[in-house]
């Protein structure tokens, strides 16, 4: 997908003014937050499991090469193939070539954020292979040619009226006056249309939530069952995923599974958790004849051992965006790339470059809720701080901000000078603003006074007044 993250400020402003978006975000707000809280309360061991999950993921990352080797060996042993790809271009070409080798005309697709990341759909389409998204939300936005606005519920920015309009526009062989008033009608229509696509597809492409080194299995977690139809009906199953998804054993996957749905949607368990291991076996009546795993790096290994190492623990549950006040205010599209919300603010600069995405780490109030709810304890705010630091270093932030901060930094590291300077400033401002108690405009603070008044200080800094009070009290 083509990033528009560099336009974040305009995107965000438009999102805030967008009445339609604000209405749907109003419906979204709170839903997952309350459900997660309830699921957490019902599992007393939840926090202990989070600690274990963090330690497990750390262990995996420290031994990533070994676990990947074991995983690959097991896939091959079970009759599958692993394809390694460093870049999105390599991954796209690999998938296309696999589709061509299978003589594929249509491809059914389960939801895969990595497929979004590498821009797979457009590429396949340009090269004569028709991909059909089968997750209901993904299907809707594919028809509308929009990117996902959430990593778990990709069409969260739409109302049922929007979906009805989209279906009428695209399902032209159905009666134009049919009833599409309720969500039920829309789900039924999509089910019927997509069922035929599943059956016709030559290749099924899914993502993976986990890869299991012990068995060479890939794991998908879904509620709809589309991912399963995608992988058991077509002749070829291609799994496209990031290489950090590997876990050692079935037991380890079980631990993460206990956290995933609870953190994401507040369910105790998603409807379908499927472990796929190689192609169909002798005597099997169904299942694919070929099994391919396309492992995508796309900058992930370059984060190992850096200050962003820990973001590789992410299990893509979406809890951080559900709880983020910024995401809740502007929705996912404003972020301008595949991963929105706090995880996007940390991951996107790593994957598409800081020059493109440098606004995103600034899209935070540092309220800390993302880190507090993250099932694998990723210190997201701290990482955003690291990106801001790099942004300033690479001179990507506006010069006025950099000079301003540099100026402030000079004084802030010299307490005596700082107290002296701020003392004078407060006294002067206090005297100037004495009459009205506020300023309608102030030089250098236009950003503030354009939309509201600046209260005038009552004279003296906080530190001075505190010292005075202490003296009085003492």
């Amino acid at each position, binding site marked *: 997908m083509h990033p528009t993250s560099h336009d974040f400020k305009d995107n965000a402003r438009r999102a805030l003014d967008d009445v339609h978006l604000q209405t*749907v975000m109003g*419906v*979204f707000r709170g839903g997952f937050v309350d459900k997660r809280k309830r699921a957490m309360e019902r*599992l*007393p*061991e939840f926090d202990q*499991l989070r600690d274990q999950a963090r330690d497990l993921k750390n262990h995996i990352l420290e*031994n990533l*090469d*070994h676990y*990947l080797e*074991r995983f690959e060996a097991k896939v091959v042993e079970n009759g599958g193939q*692993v*394809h390694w*790809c460093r870049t999105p271009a*390599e991954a796209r070409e*690999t998938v296309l*070539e696999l589709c061509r*080798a299978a003589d594929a005309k249509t491809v059914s697709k389960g939801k895969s954020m990595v497929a979004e990341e590498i821009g797979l759909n457009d590429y396949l389409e340009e090269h004569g292979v028709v991909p059909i998204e089968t997750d*209901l*939300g993904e299907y809707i936005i594919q028809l509308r040619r929009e990117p996902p606005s959430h990593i778990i*519920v*990709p069409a969260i920015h739409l109302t049922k009226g929007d*979906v009805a309009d989209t279906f009428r526009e695209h399902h032209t062989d159905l009666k134009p006056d049919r009833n599409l008033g309720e969500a039920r009608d829309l*789900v039924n229509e999509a*089910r019927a249309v997509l*069922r035929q696509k599943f059956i016709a597809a030559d290749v099924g492409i899914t993502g993976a939530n986990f890869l299991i080194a012990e*068995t060479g*299995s890939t794991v998908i977690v879904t509620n*709809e*069952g*589309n991912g*399963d*139809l995608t992988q*058991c009906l077509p002749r070829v199953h291609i799994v496209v995923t990031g290489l950090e998804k590997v876990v*050692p054993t079935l*037991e380890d996957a*079980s631990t993460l*599974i*206990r956290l995933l749905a609870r953190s994401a949607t507040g*369910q*105790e*368990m998603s*409807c379908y*958790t499927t472990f*796929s*291991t*190689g192609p*169909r*076996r002798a*005597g*099997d*009546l*169904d*299942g694919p004849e*070929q099994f391919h795993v396309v492992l995508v790096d796309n900058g992930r*290994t*370059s984060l*190992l*051992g850096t200050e962003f190492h820990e973001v590789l623990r992410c299990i893509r549950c979406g809890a951080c965006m559900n709880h983020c006040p910024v995401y809740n205010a502007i929705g996912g599209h404003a972020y301008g790339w595949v991963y929105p919300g706090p995880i996007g603010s940390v991951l996107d600069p790593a994957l598409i470059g800081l020059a493109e995405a440098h606004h995103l780490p600034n899209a935070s109030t540092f309220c800390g809720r993302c880190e507090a709810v993250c099932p694998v304890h990723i210190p997201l705010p701290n990482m955003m701080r690291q990106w801001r630091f790099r942004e300033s270093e690479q001179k990507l932030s506006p010069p006025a901000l950099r000079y301003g901060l540099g100026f402030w930094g000079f004084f802030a590291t010299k307490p005596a000078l700082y107290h002296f300077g701020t003392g004078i400033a407060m006294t002067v401002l206090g005297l100037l603003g004495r009459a009205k108690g506020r300023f309608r405009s102030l030089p250098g603070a236009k950003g503030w006074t354009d939309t509201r008044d600046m209260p005038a200080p009552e004279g003296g800094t906080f530190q001075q007044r505190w010292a005075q009070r202490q003296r009085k009290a003492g």
Partner: protein
Amino acid sequence: MAEISHSLASRSAKARAGIFGDIRAALKPMRTEGAAATVVDDRIARHPRNLVPARANLPQPEQVALFIAKATEVMTSVERVASASDVPKAIADYLKGKNLAPELRLAPDPRLSAIPWDRQPTLALTSGHARDRDATSVTGAVAGIAETGTLMMMSGPGAPITLNFMPDNHIVIMDPSRIVGSYEDGWDVARTRDGGAMPRAVNFITGPSRTADIEQQLQLGAHGPRNLHIILVDQLDRGDQGPSESDGSSA
């Protein structure tokens, strides 16, 4: 296996070398080389359990009760009958209650064909993998997992997995002695079957298919079954190699 072009294979090999080179260079300062591979092999060989929630650690009869409660919570319906000979009537009644045609697509599983279906001559039976026109499937399950009311299915000649996903209605016949506490208990059962080989597909199924993609309103039957019905049949596994009694309580 289809012919995969040489260029694809060599590109993958080159990328692989680059990826492993980068990983090893980045991790070098973080670990003692040599030790890592042993630790990894040991973890895979022993596959130790992490924390298993206390709720999964119950005596077997209570596990059955928890399984039923959790399954019901996610809108699976559950009933219990005394023996295999009660199954045909239970199914006929279930279909009638939902106004469904008395046609069943059965998994080719000897345990299912041993059921005395002729007691309900109105039921039309065929067996095999699922086809688009099959409205109702009947399958077994390898285990039930009490902690979340989850069914554990494993693919094989007697268990085509399309039966779990394509039909509108899925009926599962299972001996309640197969109900265990946790996912980990389920894996222990799996490791005792078939010499421990991982089947092509393992499905954990927790309730009928659903979506909340449209305005976060829950709708059942997105792509998979709208109805999931479990019939627990006491003594179904009697006389064969079902999981032993200790499977559940060993957790």
